[in-house]
């Protein structure tokens, strides 16, 4: 098994994949926070 190649692929995938995830979560999360605070001011806890 070519361990060196495997770890190279893992490292590149991690750095690129995480950078993409961070961008998605920043924009999506900001919207979610507004919704969460709005939900918490409602009188009851509903599913």
């Amino acid at each position, binding site marked *: 098994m070519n361990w*060196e190649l495997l770890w190279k692929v*893992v*490292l590149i995938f991690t750095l690129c994949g995480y950078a993409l995830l961070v961008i998605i979560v*920043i924009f999506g*999360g900001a919207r*979610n926070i507004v919704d969460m*605070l709005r939900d918490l001011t409602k009188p009851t*806890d509903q*599913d």
Partner: protein
Amino acid sequence: MDVFATNFRTVDWIIVCVYICIPVVIGIIVKKYIRQLSDFIVAGRSLKLFIAIATLTGTELGLVTVMYNAELGFKHGLSAFHVGIIETLCILAIGLTGFIVYKLRQLRIMTIPEFYEMRFGRNVRIVGGIILALGGILNMGLFLQAGARFMMGVTGYSNPAGLKLFMSVMLIMVLIYTVMGGMVSVVLNDFMQFIVLSIGMLIGSAFAISKIGWGNLFAAPSIVDSASWFNPVSEGSGFGTLYVIFMVVLTFSAGALWQSGTLRALSAKTPKIAKQLYAWSSVSYLARRVIPMLWGICAFVFVSQTPKLLSAFQGPDSLNSQFGMPIFMAKILPSGFLGLIAAGMFAAFMSTHDSYLLSWSSVITQDIVAPLKKERLSDKGRLLITRICIVCIGLFLLIWGLWFEAPVSLWNYMAVTGTIYLAGAFTVVTAGLYWKKASKTGAKIALYAGLLAILGIGPWTTGENVPFYLTDKFIGVMTFLIAFLGMIIGSLLFPDKSKTEEGKK
């Protein structure tokens, strides 16, 4: 080159001080949103997907995570990456199947032992709560110590009193805002820290790789065995096949049932979001392992090329290997950015600490104190007990962190103490959800079996020529196996009475 030489300057101190005040301010502001216990513990079950990903990452990517993974990279090289791969695949599998987390969210519980009561009765809940709190609090026992070592390494503060000083200041900061804001402030801070820390980690990685060079990163230093640098199951890598098996069992069970992580799934707005959360977060679970390991690997390559540093990490009075990564980062990152990284790491320390403090204190309140009391505890009473527990656990952490040293490595300590709870919990919850014959006796045996893992943090697990049956990995695997067999044999030999009677009818 001075071992503790650093680029950390006054401007970096200012960045850190300003940054760490923000969570406290958020804690004060969001206090008005805390009206009932579920708001405090599970943020009113109002988390949507992206904020849930940020907060799960914020919790599971703490300073201690960075420290123990960097230490693994520093000590074992690229072969350490296997832990990240295993964990990522386990989290992805949970996310795609919804194994355990989907059903638990459907049940609308706030802690794992609540499920024990629902399925196996109150006594099992109390036993499970005690073991969970014990394992969990021991597990975070070295968080403060590791955090303080990072700050010492980065700031270049080598005075022996530094450990106590940093530990005390960090503890006070985290206690203030966790006690005040509960889960709502935790969620908001996790989001902010997710952004700062993630960007800092990606840029920090670029600095580390450019310093060492992409080619040197994949060439084993001359002072280590080339095969063990790459291959986790090779002889001499410090891991081996048994360790890999332990990691599979441990990371899968921790992924599904580690209280602080599961708390995010239980806080999700719907069971479907709880499931999606895990699938998406598999990428951040990979990053939380691989990126700090990369820093540790770069640190080792750097140390191996610098004779004075190398001598500081070798010999009888050598520096703890946890210092490797922060000392390296302190030398390669420019002032200003170093302050931002330190602030982000400090914030990560707080975001992990607050979640864990909240998790274990809510378990003590909900699963030990409340079930033991005859009359029903009011929400106000529960909140007060939870807050008192947070302070008490904090004090324990300070004392434990000052005198206890991880026998093998920080991660091995975390793995074994995690097993105290996970071996029993994983068996009990899985059997409780998916096996009709699971009984109270089987559940109790499985939970008690988890206590065997305490043997894995004894002084006999360290040093050369340790017999395999005394190694922490063997003790860890056996604890899971005994808990699993205990559940099956106990349930078959001692089925629950009501079920037996129903069978007779």
